[in-house]
């Protein structure tokens, strides 16, 4: 199974990289962009076929290492 983890700064935590990209998009003339947030995507190949087990394990990985929950939120998507 494949787990796709997206890690991004929590709402309310200023994202300087997103802000810089937003500014650049404005300068390039792209209108109507209200906000830009930049995160990272972590793709994990898992040996298990058990979706629930995979989800639980990946959640633990996020809490332990992949995200710093003081400043970051994460989402997990499991694909067969």
């Amino acid at each position, binding site marked *: 199974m494949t787990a796709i983890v997206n890690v991004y*700064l929590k709402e309310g*935590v*200023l994202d*300087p*990289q997103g802000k*810089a990209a937003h500014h650049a998009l404005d300068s390039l003339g792209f209108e109507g962009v209200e906000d830009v947030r930049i995160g990272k995507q972590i793709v994990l190949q898992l040996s298990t076929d058990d979706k629930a087990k995979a989800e639980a394990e990946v959640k633990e990985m996020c809490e332990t*290492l*992949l995200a*710093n929950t*003081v*400043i970051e939120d994460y989402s997990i998507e499991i694909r067969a």
Partner: protein
Amino acid sequence: MKVAVLRFPGTNCEFDTQYAFEKLGHSTELVWHEDESLPANIDLVVVPGGFSYGDYLRSGSIARFSPVMKAVSKYANDGGKVLGICNGFQILTEAGLLPGALKRNNNLHFISKHQTLRVENTDNAFLNQCTKGEILNIPIAHADGNYYIDDEGLKELEANNQVLLRYCDSEGNNTVVNGSVTSIAGVCNKDKNVFGLMPHPERALEDILGSVDGVKMLKGFES
């Protein structure tokens, strides 16, 4: 005083740190990240600056799981004194030994310069040689020094005198250097035995290098 200085792959301030404490008359010992214990009879552990594990994932996020950090956590939880400088500060926040987190600098630049700092609290083992409100000149050199803590955490820090240093101008007014919440440059834990700061006191021990203000900071641990 005997000082243990940690060394991870990518650490680059371990020799400066050893030099600094030895210049002040103390003995030092380098400790490799794979060691599962700290040397006997030490008075202080320093987690020095650098780019442990290439800053991969997040600064300090991988180093905190190295074998030596288990020993450091135990040492700190037993009341031992620990000082994290720059990357060491990042590692200690990642390890949960210090509150908050360090984000990318607001301007996205690596900032390397001398910076004035205001001493916020001196009732601790680190800054007891300084006076409250004193302005120190200490070099900074970091990309991820933007200290974040939520409002509730900040209140707690203030209530317990855990804010050690703030970035300021030459007059002592808060200044925005990297985007840190209320210009915080260094904090300690509630028990006041674990200290972290982004600036490098070990680089400010000689007039020829622009400042000797680091001396009184590092000497604090002697008492």
